[in-house]
């Protein structure tokens, strides 16, 4: 089939388009228009090509390989496209397309500033290039090069508005953690390469390390990819870095880069590492569950809209890793079909999260653009000032809250279905663990709904809490179109779960060897109709019909439909915006309930209440590490005492000790 072989060339087009975008962006420092007229359109081309390549790879299946004339003589760069790559190319393409449409409008803001547009364009393109490279790489060397390129380019993007000290701090932390991740991954590949004697994925797939080294490789991979994916307690960089970047970059980082980390983990642990082990699965379930709960609890307390979204990303990645753990457990227990189901649930969740979080970050960018404010305590009433952005944002929020008929529910439902098959396991420990994981998931889902009710409710509903919010304006057509594209994607994922699942199942089949079907275009029946099924289209239809009937039947015929009046509020004095519930107040009950998990700093002075919700991991893990480094550095410095006689003594002692050793 001709079309089947197109996946790799299309991916190549995407890579070239990203390269071209980077190259032309260099001119943007002189001609700012280059960014809007060339850089972003080229990224759009890249996105379309990636999208097409991903769909092609998923549709036709099979792996396509090629060797590039780059790299080291005995270690050429190899690339390949297979269904697993396809899933993530699809995600990358979809989000990048929206960003490419959205970007020009957003970047116009920077034309008047002092920040370099060329840097923005070049590093955006390199960032995309790095992510593409990670997805396409079929050998460890290219994978690492692309991985670090991705980290590095995104570092520069985080540091883009570097005149703000907190952005610099975020960028530094990000780079450091990215390096931790990179080195851990490198070591994981080192273990695999030591076993197989080669860096090519094909060779690694053929020869597996023994159980001990497999565990080492798994731990390293979890450490590396988990850091990038924001698993607790390695997540601290994420809520710092994602908000610091320009919003369309935050969208790419949260929606795509985290998925690329997920891809890497899948590639290493599910594809290359060899036979699954239930211990790996248990680890993943525990880490994923803890991350999800932690992420959502912190998301609930954030007042910065973008930080909130970042913590929510941590939560979602936790859920995804939990599902991966289920897949690993099922696979190890000899239930490949269930493993495939859990894997599909994870992939579906990844796709949903990419679309939703992309939309929400673009929406947050629009809010920032329209109201110049991203603190929930200074927003309010934006739904009336920025209606289109507002409704798009609502769709994103409902999707994240995982309610039917939105897409977030589909993946949550699939995960629950997978977890509920735990009765098929024979080990009683696992049989207890899996339902517990489901409980954690349920808790997370409920808290997640609270997070997004709070976010949407304080930012878009109620009344403006600041002058900027009162004078907010709707954003331009390009930025709206970018969001609309993602809404389109969300609609497809929400309403046609069968076909989407059919595509994603190719990747799950590749990794587990078992098939999952969606049962037609209307129904989602992963196991059997008796067990469970779900059909979002009828749900939407009924909602619309009932709603329309209600409006039609209840609308009064003689009078005006409604009368506007001052809010009632139990008849007290006319409420002012300051009397509204604030974002901090909204989450106060949960703050009390979960108080031991937060590092709270509260300060009450007459007429003022100040609250800072800190991350315990930061104070108990990272600050001591930093202090330790400084202490060791100071001690090492004492060697350099400045006295030449002491240096000579060092020299003499070294000589004597060495002579003593060898004699």
């Amino acid at each position, binding site marked *: 089939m001709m079309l089947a072989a197109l996946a790799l060339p299309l991916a190549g087009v995407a890579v070239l388009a990203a390269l071209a975008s980077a190259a032309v962006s260099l001119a943007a420092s002189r001609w700012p228009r280059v960014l809007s007229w060339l850089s972003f359109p080229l990224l759009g081309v890249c996105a379309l090509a990636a999208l097409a390549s991903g769909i092609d790879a998923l549709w036709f299946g099979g792996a396509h390989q090629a060797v590039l004339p780059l790299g080291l003589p005995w270690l050429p760069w190899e690339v390949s496209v297979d269904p697993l790559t396809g899933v993530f190319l699809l995600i990358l393409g979809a989000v990048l397309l929206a960003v490419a449409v959205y970007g020009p409008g957003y970047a116009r803001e920077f034309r008047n500033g002092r920040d370099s547009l060329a840097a923005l364009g070049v590093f955006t393109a390199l960032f995309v290039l790095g992510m593409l490279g990670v997805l396409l790489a079929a050998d460890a060397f290219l994978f690492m090069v692309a991985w670090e390129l991705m980290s590095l380019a995104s570092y520069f993007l985080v540091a883009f508005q570097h005149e703000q000290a907190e952005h610099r701090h975020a960028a530094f932390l990000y780079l450091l953690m990215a390096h931790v991740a990179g080195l851990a991954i490198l070591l994981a590949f080192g273990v695999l390469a030591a076993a197989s004697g080669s860096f090519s994925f094909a060779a690694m797939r053929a020869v597996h390390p023994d159980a001990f080294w497999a565990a080492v490789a798994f731990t390293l991979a979890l450490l590396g990819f988990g850091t990038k994916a924001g698993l607790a307690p390695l997540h601290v960089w994420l809520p710092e870095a994602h908000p610091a970047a320009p919003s369309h970059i935050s969208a790419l980082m949260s929606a795509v880069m985290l998925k690329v980390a997920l891809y890497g983990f899948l590639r290493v642990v599910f594809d290359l590492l060899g036979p699954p082990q239930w211990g790996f699965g248990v680890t993943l379930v525990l880490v994923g569950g803890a991350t999800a709960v932690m992420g959502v609890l912190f998301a609930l307390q954030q007042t910065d809209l973008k930080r909130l979204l970042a913590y929510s990303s941590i939560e979602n990645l936790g859920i995804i890793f939990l599902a991966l753990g289920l897949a690993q457990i099922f696979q190890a227990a000899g239930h490949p079909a269930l493993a495939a189901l859990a894997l599909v649930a994870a992939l579906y969740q990844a796709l949903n999260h990419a679309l939703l979080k992309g939309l929400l970050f673009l929406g947050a960018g629009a809010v920032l653009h329209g109201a110049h404010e991203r603190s929930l305590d200074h927003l309010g009433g934006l739904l009336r000032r920025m209606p289109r952005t507002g409704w798009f944002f609502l769709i994103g929020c409902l999707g994240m809250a995982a309610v039917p008929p939105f897409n977030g529910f589909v993946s949550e439902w699939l995960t629950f279905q997978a977890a509920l098959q735990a009765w098929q396991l024979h080990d009683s420990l696992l049989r207890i663990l899996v339902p517990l994981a489901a409980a954690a998931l349920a808790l997370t889902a409920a808290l997640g709904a609270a997070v997004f009710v709070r976010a949407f409710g304080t930012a878009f509903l109620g009344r403006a809490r600041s002058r900027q919010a009162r004078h907010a304006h709707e954003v331009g057509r390009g930025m709206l179109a970018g969001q609309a594209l993602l809404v389109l994607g969300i609609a497809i994922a929400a309403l046609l779960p069968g076909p989407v699942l059919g595509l994603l199942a190719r990747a799950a089949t590749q990794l587990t060897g078992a098939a999952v079907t969606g049962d037609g275009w209307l129904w989602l029946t992963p196991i059997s109709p008796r067990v469970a099924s779900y059909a979002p289209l009828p749900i939407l239809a009924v909602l619309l019909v009932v709603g329309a009937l209600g409006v039609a039947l209840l609308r009064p015929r003689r009078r005006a439909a409604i009368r506007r009046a001052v809010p009632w509020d139990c008849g007290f004095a006319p409420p002012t915006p300051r009397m509204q519930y604030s974002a901090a107040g909204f989450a106060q009950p949960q703050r009390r309930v979960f108080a031991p998990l937060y590092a709270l700093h509260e300060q009450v002075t007459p007429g003022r209440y100040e609250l800072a919700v800190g991350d315990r991991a930061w104070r108990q893990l990272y600050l001591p590490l930093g202090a330790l480094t400084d202490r060791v550095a100071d001690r090492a410095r004492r060697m350099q005492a400045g006295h030449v*006689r002491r240096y000579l003594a060092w020299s003499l002692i070294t000589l004597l000790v060495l002579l003593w050793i060898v004699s």
Partner: protein
Amino acid sequence: MNLAALPLLDQAVLVLAAMALFSAFALLAQSRLLSAIHVFAWQGALVAAVAALTGAASGDVNLYISAAITFVLKVLLIPWMLHRLVRRLALERQADPLPYPALTLLAGAAIVVFADWVAAPVAQFEHSATRNVIAISLAIVLLGMLTMVVRRQALAQVLGFMAIENGLFLAAVASTHGMPLVVELGVAFDVLVAMVLFGVFFLQIKDSIDTLDIDRLSQLASSVEQDEDTEPPR
């Protein structure tokens, strides 16, 4: 091998080497600068004599040349330059007493024992009579370093440095009957240039900190980096 069975020349070499070792100790302990320079000159003379005697024993012409170079350089030229410096810097009366002379000398003795222990496997491999001179030369090298560690006077440090050179030369002569001539010339040239540079430095140091006590040369300690008010130059 019995000492008495050795030819007279070899016996003389051994005696001279022992005296060179003693001079290294003298250099270590001597606190007056001018006397130390004299001791150094004597050490140079002893080493040159060893070279000449070894040349006589083996009939190697190169060794005579080496001995001559050493004599000129280490006995005449360098002590003369040092003398001039001492006079120019008005250091004639300056003493540089050791903080713990007894301990230092004991450490020196320990170093000699250590040097013998290290050199034993090397020396047992040579059959000529002068093999044990290798241990002596190693000891002189290490004692030179010790001198540099314990002495605070810049000039005394230079003497230690030059004593190391003497030890090296002794080693070369005793173990291998001298290095190839090119190398010897190169070494000698380097020593000469080094001496010139030392002279330049003394003047510069004296200019900048008004003393030659090298413990005062500790501005560049990393801990000083913390100091806010000292602005290092570019």
